[in-house]
């Protein structure tokens, strides 16, 4: 089963994560977003950053999570490739592993300006949790 993917949007691009739990869908959604920025397979998970955020519903929380990661990556000058999420009471505690961005080695493609509410969907289809939204590039 694929764990993450991007989907088409005319001006920008959609990111989608799948998982056996909401947390895993969030983790894989983050992978999808960073796969838009660079080749995440080339990123080594050597450093860890922690982010915390909260929102009133799971959909807003997904956007919040992605936007917190964008800020954390930018402020630390890093790219992330692995993620871990814990969610309780609309509060998210997350960790991201990665390393300093290297334009050449990571085959960096494009910046993501923000995760947006467009085509935002967080939910469950059968046994699979899905978290998705469009990111503005």
């Amino acid at each position, binding site marked *: 089963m694929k764990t993450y993917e*991007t*989907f*088409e*949007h*005319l*001006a*920008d*691009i959609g990111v989608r994560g799948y998982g056996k739990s909401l947390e895993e869908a969030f983790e894989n959604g983050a992978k999808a977003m960073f796969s838009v*920025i*660079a080749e995440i397979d080339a990123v080594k998970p050597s450093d860890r950053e922690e982010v915390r955020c909260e*929102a009133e519903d799971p959909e*807003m929380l997904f*956007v*919040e999570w992605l*936007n917190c990661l*964008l*800020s954390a990556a*930018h*402020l630390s*000058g890093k790219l992330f490739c692995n993620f871990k999420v814990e969610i309780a009471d609309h509060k998210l505690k997350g960790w991201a592993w990665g390393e300093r*961005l290297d*334009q050449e080695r990571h*085959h*960096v*493609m*494009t*910046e993501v*300006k*923000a*995760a*947006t*509410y*467009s085509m*935002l969907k967080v939910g469950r289809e059968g046994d699979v949790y899905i978290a998705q939204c469009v990111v*503005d*590039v």
Partner: protein
Amino acid sequence: MELKSLNKISDYVWEIPREGEMRVPGRIFASAELVEDFDDNVVKQIKNVAALPGIQQASMAMPDAHWGYGFPIGGVAAFDPEEGGIISMGGIGFDISCGVRTMRTGMRREEIEPYIGKLVDRLFALVPAGVGSEGKIRLNQSQIDEVLVGGAQWAVSQGYGYKEDLRYIEEGGVMGGADPAQVSDTAKKRQFREVGTLGSGNQYLEIQYVAEVYDEKIAGELGLFRDDVVISVHCGSRALGHQIGTDYLKTLAEASRRYNIPVHERELVCAPINSPEGRRYFSAVCAGINCALANRQVIAHLVREAFSDVIPRARISMLYDVSHNTCKVEEHPVGSKIKRLFIHRKGATRAFGPGRKEIPEEYRSTGQPVLIGGTMGTCSYILVGTESGMTQAFGSACHGAGRALSRTQAKKRWRGDALLKELGARGIIIRTHSYSGAAEEAPGAYKDVTAVVDATHNAGLAKKVVMVKPMACIKG
């Protein structure tokens, strides 16, 4: 979308009649062919904007309109604070004050050609571009506040460019009403090393020559003649602007609920202009605009440095600097009254006609230069604002070509290295940090900018003056 759902006002103006919650009609400025190509979501978004409190005259879409976030990209709407008017995140977006600056070089195409390779290499070395690039300027907390208040004026005070440059920037290079206290520490920190960087995606720096002149008299007054070389820079407020957008998305979502504003799409979130949240957001947006103006001013300085290294006799002078994603306070006649309105332009250019006090004296008889970016393989246009654009669309025009293919499709269809070779064979040099990013920006992935500009001209929103073609382009 289907034309028959619209009322035809003229060959280039279409009306979406008022229905349901719409407070004003919708108005699309485009040719029949362009309208037929519009996504149905554009019409939905025009209608949603028309339902917002305090909207004046019409919810408008420019010829390059496409599906956006809340507002369509290419959406224009004016709100009156005295009638409960709002300020909306959807009408400004995440890339606050992204815009185009065009500068003359005082040189002709044949004079530049022998140096073009060296010049592009020097520009590519001096202007930081691409993901993760950092500028030479390092700022701290108090210095960033000065940028947010001072805009391009701050840059000039630091030695980046000349005082004379400021006259040819909207608002004289500094947006009043900016309050750094309304910008989060995260947003500020993200900008500490970003001032003077180009960015990635559709941002660029291009060396262009005047290939066609449509109105010699006005072109002459703008100091543009056939085969003149100009430099255009397309970029915005960088990470600081993105973070302001992200931060206020939450603030405004709460405000929309608190003030019972009908928001039919989450990204339309807004607050009354005369509310604490509305005032805070507006002050933050003004700070974001100043960040973009400072950014383009520093890049202009780097362009001058590159030229003085390679062709010292070039004289780089400002033509004009326009912003696309803004909310600005402007006076416009509505009915028999002159109103002070908050004009949202999302992916649209201010295009003031002759006589407006906001434009520099030299251009007051011609109208404001309107700089429309095309693609790295086709062409761009310079127009001027018109009287008819003032009455029809609060002095607004299109901003670019608009995408025809998604980034994913573009990457499937073109390979970056092959594309660059093909453009090279046509005499256009491209420098990029990402082949894949370049493939996403392939000229064929965009709509025909000429059709968009012709519709803008024919609708009377702005008047075509010259067309410029690329000689070289730097992409992030």
